[in-house]
């Protein structure tokens, strides 16, 4: 069998960590080859080596059977390797066409010649059913469309080997289906695709073969058709993974948080971001706020935690009014918050792990004495949490959090927030961008908190998470609560109707 790309025995080290340890990846012509692994398994590093962003210490790369020297992305392009990055690299105030030709423009007497380019773009768009309008501004098109522009860029440059780096992370379910079709189409036209992901469903759907990495090591390459999802996840994580969240009966207790007629002004428009929302969260239950992104969930959480002022309405926490309390007062009185954006709010990336683990408690008696930090206690605390929550990093408590993998950054935040022993745990998108193992872990922790008699408020966009973890579901649409459901009886379709605003009911 002819291989179009062969990466043989690749080893790449970083200080304190071997990112790729003797990894081999062989991709056949015209196949969709999935690269599966947890966060920090070495997928991105391996692709960066292929793309010339990193230089491997050991190993060889062959393209079409010939040894290839790839020192920078330009070399990679010469070999026809193109990559769709997780974060798109497009100029927003340029049109699609201008973005596609950027860097390979045809110029005549100092003037841009776009006519030929336009024809080529239209031809490719038709050939692969991309439905792209070459004159649309990037700032006007959807995220899914932006991704297609990136794909078109690769095709325009006549790349034969296409790398997709977690392409579905930013897409809606419909857009994901479309992308899957496009990928199959590309493969049937003879392009070879490397598909980086940690979502098993997607691999099952499109990939021909899958190479699994775990903690920087090569595990296996298998045929997708003959391998079950359970087997794949076991290879990836190294143990059996539970897809169903294990949890016992809920025993809801007293009301911990009561939200009454909450209104939050929108920063961007005249409409209210949160409009007249009322609900209660009890001890021993996981209440989930479901909804499509941008329907006021973020503002609701900001209002609950004090990051945003409240326009009207009131908040009762453990019976006392916290409507006008400061962030610190709320935090100290027993509200923990796993924020949506871990880089913006959750961590000070230039502080080390130990310093980040006391971000919410550095002012407590345990960690300071007359304003002087007790470093011994702070580092002891960090070592304890690192062990208890299995936070992995290059240099332990001294690691800069910037250098840690996303999953471990999230674990650090979860550790810090749970360690505060709160009465109410607000978790916003706590598993965003994490792999199955980490997701399982975080879900387990949320259920543990519930079983320990805490109230958990989960805000999630992931349908599976909503269905599996929560005890009660409220759906938010355009700043209002439009439905409530019991996850044991409601169907995903019905929830979808609430989430898209097609169905609504009056709550309580």
């Amino acid at each position, binding site marked *: 069998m002819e291989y179009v790309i062969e990466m043989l025995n690749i080893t790449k080290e970083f200080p304190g960590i071997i990112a790729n340890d003797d990894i081999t990846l062989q991709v056949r012509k015209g196949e969709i080859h999935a690269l599966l692994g947890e966060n920090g398994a070495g997928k991105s590093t391996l692709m960066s080596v292929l793309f010339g962003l990193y230089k491997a210490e050991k190993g060889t790369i062959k393209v079409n059977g010939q040894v290839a020297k790839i020192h920078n992305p330009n070399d990679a392009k010469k070999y026809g390797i193109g990559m769709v990055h997780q974060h798109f690299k497009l100029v927003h105030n340029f049109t699609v066409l201008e973005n596609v030709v950027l860097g390979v423009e045809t110029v005549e007497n100092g003037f841009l010649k776009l006519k030929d380019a336009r024809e080529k773009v239209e031809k490719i768009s038709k050939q692969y059913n991309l439905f792209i309008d070459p004159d649309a501004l990037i700032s006007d098109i959807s995220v899914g469309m932006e991704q297609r522009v990136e794909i078109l860029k690769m095709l325009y440059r006549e790349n034969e080997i296409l790398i997709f780096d977690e392409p579905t992370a930013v897409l809606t379910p419909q857009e994901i289906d479309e992308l899957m079709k496009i990928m199959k189409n590309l493969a049937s036209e003879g392009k070879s695709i490397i598909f980086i992901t940690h979502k098993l469903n997607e691999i099952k759907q499109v990939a021909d073969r899958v190479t699994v990495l775990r903690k920087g090591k090569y595990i296996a390459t298998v045929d997708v058709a003959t391998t079950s999802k359970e087997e794949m996840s076991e290879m990836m994580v190294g143990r059996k993974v539970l897809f169903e969240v294990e949890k016992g009966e809920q025993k809801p207790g007293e009301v911990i948080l009561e939200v009454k007629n909450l209104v939050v002004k929108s920063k961007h428009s005249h409409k209210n971001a949160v409009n007249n929302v009322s609900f209660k969260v009890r001890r021993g239950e996981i209440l989930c706020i479901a909804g499509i992104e941008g329907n006021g969930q973020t503002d609701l959480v900001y209002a609950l935690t*004090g990051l945003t002022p409240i326009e009207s309405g009131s908040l009762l926490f453990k019976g006392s009014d916290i409507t006008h309390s400061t962030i610190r007062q709320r935090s100290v009185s027993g509200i923990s918050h796993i924020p949506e954006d871990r880089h913006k709010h959750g*961590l000070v990336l230039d*502080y080390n792990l130990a*310093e980040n683990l006391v*971000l919410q408690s550095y002012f407590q008696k345990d960690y300071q004495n007359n304003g002087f930090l007790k470093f011994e206690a702070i580092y002891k605390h960090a070592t304890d949490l690192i062990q208890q929550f299995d936070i992995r990093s290059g240099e332990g408590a001294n690691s800069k959090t910037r250098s840690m993998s996303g999953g471990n950054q999230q674990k650090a935040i979860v550790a810090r927030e749970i360690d505060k022993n709160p009465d109410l745990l607000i978790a916003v998108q706590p598993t965003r961008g994490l792999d199955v193992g980490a997701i399982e872990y975080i879900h387990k922790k949320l259920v543990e908190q519930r079983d320990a008699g805490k109230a958990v408020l989960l805000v999630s966009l992931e349908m599976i998470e909503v269905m599996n973890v929560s005890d009660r579901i409220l759906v938010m649409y355009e700043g209002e609560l439009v439905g409530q459901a019991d996850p044991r009886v409601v169907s995903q379709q019905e929830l979808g109707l609430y989430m898209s605003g097609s169905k609504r009911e009056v709550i309580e």
Partner: protein
Amino acid sequence: MNKLLKSKGFQNASASILSIIFGFVFGFIVLLISNPANAVGGFLTILSGGFTGGMKGLGQTLYLATPIIMTGLSVGFAFKTGLFNIGASGQFIIGAFTAVFIAVKATFIPTEILWLVALTGAFVAGGLWALVPGFLKAYRNVNEVIASIMMNYIGMYLVNFMVVKTVFDAARNQSMTPTRAIIPKVGLDTLFNGSNVNLGIIIAILVAIIAYIVLEKTTFGYELKACGYNRSASQYAGMNSKRNILLSMVIAGAFAGLGGGLLYLAGSGKHIQVVDILAAEGFNGIPVALLGLSNPIGIIFAAIFVAYINVGGFYMQLYKFVPEVISIMVAAIIYLSAFSLFFREQISAFFKKRTEGK
């Protein structure tokens, strides 16, 4: 030994030293171009810098280092907390004026403590001057660079105006001599005979040490730095980020203001000139902070180094170098020295390669 070589402190220090060497090489080229015959002699003079005049030269080095330790701290402290205080010049001269004003006018205060009161005044005035850009930054998100540059000019003209109105020595077009409030010499003048060094250098070093302790060891410093690194996260953690930004700026300003007081109460015959020139000590704080990598302890050494070069430059006049060439030479050395950040990256890359090679 290997552990020492790879330690961060060592890499930082060696980066600073390496950049200083580059500065010297460049400076030597400047000398060769301007006056080849005397280049070697002149260069040796600047190399031996503060040692040229014996103990006097050393004393002068410490004397000149005093104000730029303070302005270096001012810039460095703000840096550490995510702010760029380019207004040290204005805060410096406001502090200087306040000190001189108190020293001349506050005749009711006993001579023994007058200098201390005047210095305190300088400290407070510098802080107040930085309150304006600090307030604008914290509560209105106005860029502190722009705001503090403006405050430099306002400060300079205000001081010129106030000197003429209050403590003017018309004959010399400068401020009066604050004879009753000279900072004590505490025996340093006999140790470094003939120089202007005084208690000020010890005060400056103490302030630097306090700044270091505040930044690295206290909850207050933890908050200030958290705000500087990530304002959103510090808000999330319940810190009052607005107050912290304001305080960072005020503390930075107070350091610069104290620097002004320390220089003009040194009893060295230095007076506030009524001219339209921004105080250079304020801007010299920037390379000092860069060279010291914003670490208060590093800033002490960086300031002493810059002063050392300046003293060397002074003695270069013996070799018939015109002051302008000396200024270029000194500036080139300081300028290149501030590249230490760049060299630090190179050094850590070098050590990484070496360990990987093994």
